[in-house]
């Protein structure tokens, strides 16, 4: 006897992600899911980013790692509210799932922040598959990695809305072919905005932060509009 099922295996995660998205919209929080391989410089990038955004853009951080609270300790020095998720409590997962982000978000005062940055577990495979209710997905590729990473992990580069090419201060010392790396990203996702930056020197930060702030403001404006027409303010 055959039983028709036709059910998405990740349906539970997708429902939870939709609930997260609704919660973030209600609280007017723009959410960025930042992904990369381990060691691409995500945490330093966030330290420097928080240093430049705060206090102008109130920002909270959820940071995912399999083990340790080292990243949260580093990021909390910026003064931003930080929640660490250790996925070993959830079975050593290699990615953040929507329900885990939800639990972490409940430990943040969402009304007090405009931007929530979620530093995903360092991994170019699994996080690409799991919607967590974010507005924007970004991937960090550092110039100490191979130029062919986008071709090896096409799903990640396909699902992201922008890419950061990090550690460009090291280019003079490396054989890294930047143009080839960019061509490889474009081969997977032709229109993807790519920002060349160095978290170490903060070179290239101005354009990408301006772009990010514009996304945050866009969401706030779409959120406020119905309220303004509703109560006549």
């Amino acid at each position, binding site marked *: 006897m055959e039983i028709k*099922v036709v059910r998405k295996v990740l349906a539970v995660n997708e429902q939870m992600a939709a609930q997260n998205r609704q919660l973030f919209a209600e609280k007017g929080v723009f959410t960025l899911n930042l992904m990369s391989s381990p060691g691409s410089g995500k945490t330093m990038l966030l330290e420097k980013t928080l240093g430049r955004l705060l206090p102008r853009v109130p920002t909270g951080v959820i940071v995912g790692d399999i083990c340790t609270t080292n990243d949260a300790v580093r990021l909390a020095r910026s003064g931003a509210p930080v929640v660490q998720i250790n996925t070993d409590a959830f079975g050593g997962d290699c990615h953040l799932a929507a329900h885990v982000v939800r639990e972490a978000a409940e430990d943040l005062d969402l009304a007090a922040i405009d931007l929530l940055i979620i530093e995903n577990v360092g991994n170019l*495979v*699994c996080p690409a598959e799991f919607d967590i209710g974010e507005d924007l997905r970004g991937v960090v590729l550092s110039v100490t990695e191979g130029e062919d990473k986008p071709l090896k992990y096409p799903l990640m580069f396909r699902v992201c809305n922008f890419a950061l090419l990090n550690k460009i201060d090291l280019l003079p010392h490396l054989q890294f072919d930047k143009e080839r790396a960019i061509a490889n990203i474009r081969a997977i996702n032709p229109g993807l905005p790519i920002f060349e930056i160095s978290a170490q020197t903060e070179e290239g930060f101005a354009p990408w932060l301006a772009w990010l702030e514009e996304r945050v403001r866009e969401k706030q404006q779409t959120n406020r509009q119905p309220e303004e027409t509703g109560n006549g303010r």
Partner: protein
Amino acid sequence: MHEMGIVLQIIETARAAIPPQLQGIQVKALNLRIGKLTAVVPESLRFCFNIARQDTVLAGASLRIEEVPIEAACRDCGERSIIETPPFTCSRCGGGDLAILSGRELIVTSLELADP
């Protein structure tokens, strides 16, 4: 890398699909559709399934995986192409502005139950 978690979801999805009056009947086969652009490796999925199915109604079930190709439609010329490997470009005009039509599936399509 996360195939075990996905296998547990698959088993839960399958169990939930069996009507109450048929609970306890062994599943003979489980049919899945997995897109080629999904971060799931069929061999790893089978390996994890063989471990996780023990002591469930799927203990004797075979896993039938239908791989779904990556099909894309070109937004410039309208051509539909099957993409085997990167880059993601249109097979007719070479353009890169593609809408992915299939390849992200991860679906339990049906179960086959043993005779009661």
